[in-house]
């Protein structure tokens, strides 16, 4: 069953097309990343799915409810972290959370305060619960905004740049929470981010968008392979000689072999690193080569993303 389904979702602002015929399916409990440069259409997509703005064309269903005919049901099922923390700075952290928890239908006072307390304690904000939000740092506001998004235990979360502006420790706390929500509570998370590290660590699948359209969608591994081609095995040697080079070149799995003089290593391009690595190492050893290290080099998602966006922008 899919938690989010869109079909030809389009949003135009006068003559400008912000999102252009976007179709995607996000499974229950999946963490799905929406990547792309500024102005790619990520936030507009999220706003349409959260029923904040209406699509110009196409359709979408969130938690089984149509975004146009059943917006209240959609809003009840969704927790959203917007670009800005969107917190009331003159209210305390507790007053903010109490208001939003009630607005999302958490009516039982005991259950509400238990939930709020658990989340504030998770983010180390409980001691500051009676302080006005205006006195909070940017990172604390961001954490509090995440508490707001999750306070009513929504089955679906839309998070726009959740780790933006956070220190590494806080960013890790948020990634841990997202992982826990996905794995333990089976929450579906749509994550808009520039932080490819977040996408790489959390997302089962990612979609890269540019100029309102989907460029590519798949798992981070698939994207890396699709965009940057075959993996390269780097075999570090004490010394590269002709016999070792010939032995490796003779292996049918080696598609391309080059020598890296700086690293004193052979760079072997293969189709499947898992099956090729033991065979190649064995060939080197039999040819009396002294192996110092073996690494499978894959481009990071960031490298793949940058390459793809660069190619897209050239077109």
């Amino acid at each position, binding site marked *: 069953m899919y938690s989010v389904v869109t079909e030809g979702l389009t949003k135009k*602002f006068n003559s400008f097309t912000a999102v252009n015929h976007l179709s995607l399916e996000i499974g229950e409990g999946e963490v799905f990343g929406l990547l792309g440069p500024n102005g790619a259409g990520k936030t507009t997509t999220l*706003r349409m799915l*959260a*029923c*904040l*703005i*209406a699509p110009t064309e196409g359709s979408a269903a969130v938690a089984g409810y149509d975004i146009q005919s059943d917006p*209240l049901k959609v*809003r*009840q099922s*969704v927790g*959203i972290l*917007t*670009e*800005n923390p*969107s*917190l*009331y*700075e*003159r*209210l305390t952290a507790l*007053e903010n959370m109490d*208001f*939003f928890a*009630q*607005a*999302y*239908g958490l009516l039982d006072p005991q259950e509400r305060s238990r939930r709020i307390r658990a989340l504030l304690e998770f983010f180390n904000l409980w001691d500051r619960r009676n302080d*006005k939000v205006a006195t909070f740092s940017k990172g604390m506001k961001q954490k509090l*905004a995440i508490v*707001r998004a999750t306070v009513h235990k929504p089955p679906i979360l839309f998070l726009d740049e959740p780790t933006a502006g956070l220190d590494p420790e806080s960013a890790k706390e948020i990634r841990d929470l997202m992982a826990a929500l996905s794995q333990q509570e089976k929450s579906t998370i749509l994550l808009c981010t520039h932080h490819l590290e977040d996408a790489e660590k959390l997302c089962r699948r990612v979609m890269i968008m540019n100029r309102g359209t989907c460029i590519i969608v798949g798992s981070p591994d698939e994207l890396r392979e699709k965009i940057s081609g075959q993996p390269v095995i780097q075999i570090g040697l004490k010394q590269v000689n002709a016999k070792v080079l010939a032995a490796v070149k003779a292996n049918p799995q080696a598609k391309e072999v080059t020598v890296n003089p700086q690293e004193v290593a052979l760079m072997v391009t293969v189709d499947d690193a898992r099956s090729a690595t033991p065979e190649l190492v064995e060939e080197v050893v039999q040819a009396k080569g002294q192996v110092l290290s073996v690494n499978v080099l894959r481009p990071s998602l960031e490298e793949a993303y940058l390459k793809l966006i660069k190619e897209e922008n050239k077109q």
Partner: protein
Amino acid sequence: MNRRNVWLVFKKDWLEIKRNPQVLLPIVIVPIIFAVVLPAIVVLISSTPAAAGSSQNSVEGFLPLIANLPQDIQAMLAQMEPNQVMVYIMAVYFFAPFFLIIPIMASSVMGSDSFAGEKERKTIEALLATPLTDGELLLGKSLVSFIPAMAVTFVSFFVYGAIIDVATYSMFNGMLLIPNAVWLILIFGVTPALALCSIGLTVIISARVKGFKEAQQISVVLLLPILGLLFAQVSGLLILGPVVLAALIGLLVLVDIAIFYLGMKVFQREEILSRQS
């Protein structure tokens, strides 16, 4: 529409307003001026011999107004000393339109903060993402402008009436000037209808502008008809008697209905978000 949700929005907005001196100061200071300073002028006139001596000249300035008052009032004024006429005209008629400024000012300041202020402070997106309906948000936010505006108006009226009556009690031989029918209709009939009109217009303006100050500045335009009423009364063109006030209430109710219909139309999430600063 869920009343609990309306109350929730009201409570949240009221907490914010209570902690915002930029909003609280004008809605406290202006009523203090009208409820305390205006009657102080009357007290000064009634108690200072020098001021009393110049009353004859001042009464002449109100002659166009007096000439258009009902016959029984004119007959009563004819029996009074110039000093008493001056005090009576000022306390009962001249200052009355000033009390129409209080609900307009209070409701437009609070309304601007509640609607346009949320846009300016970038809190509106999270609020609009909640399952609260447009009607619940609109009503909750309208009430947070309406209830305090009315409270301030009523308290100002009671303070004004008390000061006037205490100050003029011996001068008019025990006759209480306030309240009378005109003031009761004005305060309990006209001001609520006017406050609703002001709130409706503030909602419409706030949906179109990006910030609190912009909305408030445009809302000030609402004071122009009130100043028109003030000058019309002084010049004798229009006397705010019970009939005129009843007609004014009827007109304002029609305007309120039209404005609220329009307000509901413009209170759309996408429209509000697209004009966020």
